[in-house]
């Protein structure tokens, strides 16, 4: 009896010490960087910008990989084991991550712990399923998790990353906040230009853009005799020739991007996410594209290019195949370069497909000078 009581107390003590060791991780000492591991390269990019000299950042997924289907490697476990902060979507995109976290033994970065940053926090997700069934294909039960394709979402992602860095390195708070504000301002300028945020406010613009009401609003309303759309700059202005255009995407990666720039997703090559198209679906898609004169197929470059080009050739459309994540192509050196690449390739595809007028063919808005 006495022996079992001692054993129970010892076990309780061991449990308390283990939990305390996992949770109470001291902030980095001066000169020692916060180790940040991000699942996606775009999160890593934002973490580097916000964290600056105070962080050392690594990404698990390469820019040309499908984040759904990563085979966990021992090197991932080692990476996460050493991490002070783990940045992930926090939805059901990186389904391989829980295995890696379990194996690494780093309790500090488990869900709910200080080192865990779910970047989707606070983002109003699109395409929340009404019916949860495997018959619908690879359904994402919380909503579409492909957040990175909208700069509006990435502002919230940046805020969540900053919150995580501050939680784990409170001494760096002022530094992180200053970097965050500069980053958010830069995203606003690159997305809307200079004039529109001054007129309507960046947050209002972001809210409307996320809801898909921004472009119709800009087209409908005027200021000083000019449509508000004329005051748009940056990526919004660059995409103006394609506002209201219908296109087909290979997989539902692009919903946030399409909603932001008022593009219509008329169909997908994959009828249900993760399920190869049947002959009938391909035929119906081809027929629909011909009837509606849809001339662009948008796809991430980790999908089978042959299928995309085959569908495109059957309807006379242009395949626009781009990396979904930064680093997925040599030009996509950071998130801003990545969005530039998407827009440039879409416009080039539209031009080749004969969708742009002579006026619209001139070079698009350049990036503002730093």
């Amino acid at each position, binding site marked *: 009896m006495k022996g079992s009581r001692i054993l129970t107390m010892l076990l309780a003590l061991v449990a308390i010490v283990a939990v305390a060791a996992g949770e109470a991780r001291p902030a980095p000492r001066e000169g020692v960087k916060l180790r940040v591991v991000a699942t996606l390269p775009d999160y890593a990019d934002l973490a580097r910008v916000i964290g600056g000299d105070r962080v050392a950042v690594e990404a698990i997924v390469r820019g*040309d*990989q*499908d984040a759904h*289907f990563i*085979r966990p490697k021992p090197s991932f476990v080692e990476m996460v084991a050493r991490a002070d902060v783990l940045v992930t979507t926090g939805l059901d995109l990186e389904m391989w991550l829980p295995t890696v976290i379990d194996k690494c033994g780093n309790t500090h970065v488990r869900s709910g712990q200080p080192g865990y940053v779910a970047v989707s926090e606070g983002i109003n997700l699109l395409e929340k399923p009404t019916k949860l069934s495997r018959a619908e294909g690879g359904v994402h039960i919380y909503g579409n998790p492909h957040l990175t394709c909208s700069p509006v979402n990435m502002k919230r992602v940046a805020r969540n990353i900053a919150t995580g860095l501050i939680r784990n390195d409170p001494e760096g708070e002022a530094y992180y906040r200053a970097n965050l504000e500069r980053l958010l301002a830069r995203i606003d300028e690159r997305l809307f230009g200079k004039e529109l945020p001054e007129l309507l406010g960046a947050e209002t613009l972001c809210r409307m853009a996320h809801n898909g009401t921004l472009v119709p609003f800009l087209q409908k309303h005027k200021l000083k005799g000019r449509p508000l759309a004329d005051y748009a700059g940056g990526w919004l202005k660059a995409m103006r020739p394609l506002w209201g255009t219908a296109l087909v995407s290979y997989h539902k990666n692009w919903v946030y991007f399409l909603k932001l720039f008022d593009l219509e997703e008329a169909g997908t090559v994959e*009828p249900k996410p993760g*399920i*190869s*198209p*049947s*002959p*009938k*679906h*391909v*035929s119906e898609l*081809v*027929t629909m594209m011909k009837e509606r004169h849809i001339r662009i197929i948008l796809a991430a*470059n*980790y*999908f*089978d*290019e*042959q*299928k995309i080009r*085959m569908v495109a050739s059957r309807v006379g459309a242009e395949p626009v195949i781009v990396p979904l994540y930064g680093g*997925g192509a040599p030009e996509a050196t950071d998130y801003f370069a990545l969005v530039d690449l998407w827009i440039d390739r879409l416009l080039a595809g539209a031009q080749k497909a004969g969708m742009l007028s002579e006026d619209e063919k001139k070079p698009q808005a350049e990036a503002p000078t730093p």
Partner: protein
Amino acid sequence: MSESLHFLILQLSLLAVVLVLHTYIGLHIVRRTLIFSDLVLDQLAALGALVGLALGIGYATPGSYLVSTGMVLIGAGLLAGIKPTNPLIPREAVIGTLYAVALLASLLVGDKLSGGEAYVNKTLAGAMVWVSWPLVAVTVGVYAALLLFHYAYRDKFIALAEGTAAKERWWDFLLFATQGIITILIVPIAGVLLAYAFLMIPAAIAAMFTRRWGRAVAIGWGVGFGACAAGCVGSWYWGLPYGPTLILALGAAFLVAMGLRAARRERATD
């Protein structure tokens, strides 16, 4: 021409040609109980395509076929050359090991490629729904040449199957090499799993009912083509993924054949 009719004619034309040679070679494999040799060659063809991608050679291009040819010839050499004399080591164990190594090598190479997952998936699942008439024409040409070769030397190959061939290793190598050449063409189209099904299932069905070569090829081709045609129509009508539906249709035909065979046996004993 409607999309559905165009699709059916294209697919059935390809299937009609492919199944002749696959059934014939499959009969050799079934009779010699080298069941997994085709999986080895299919996977080596796939590995060759992935290695080609790693070398900057486009998938399903002449250069890619060349690399795959090199791989399957190595595989044909190993399959012909490795014959354990120890009765405790079945030849199928060696073949199975070769398959596992080829598959894992494919996964490792695919891991390093840009878009590697898509290519690995493609080598397994194929892209038969996306075939075009030029590809059918090339396939018909190569298959016709191989059929002629096998017809010219049919006595040698049949002797090999019956265990009476002289220079066994040499004719073994030629059988595996010709089998390998058809896998180089069919794996990019149908994928490893469907290519294997094309080779094994019609031959296995035919082997249940006759030992005569001509009749076996006719039965295997007829049943295989019928099952694939049903799969083709079913995939279209029910909107099912094409390759898996063909495999299921062939599998269903195999089960029906087994049932018929069992029923025949029972009637014979009554």
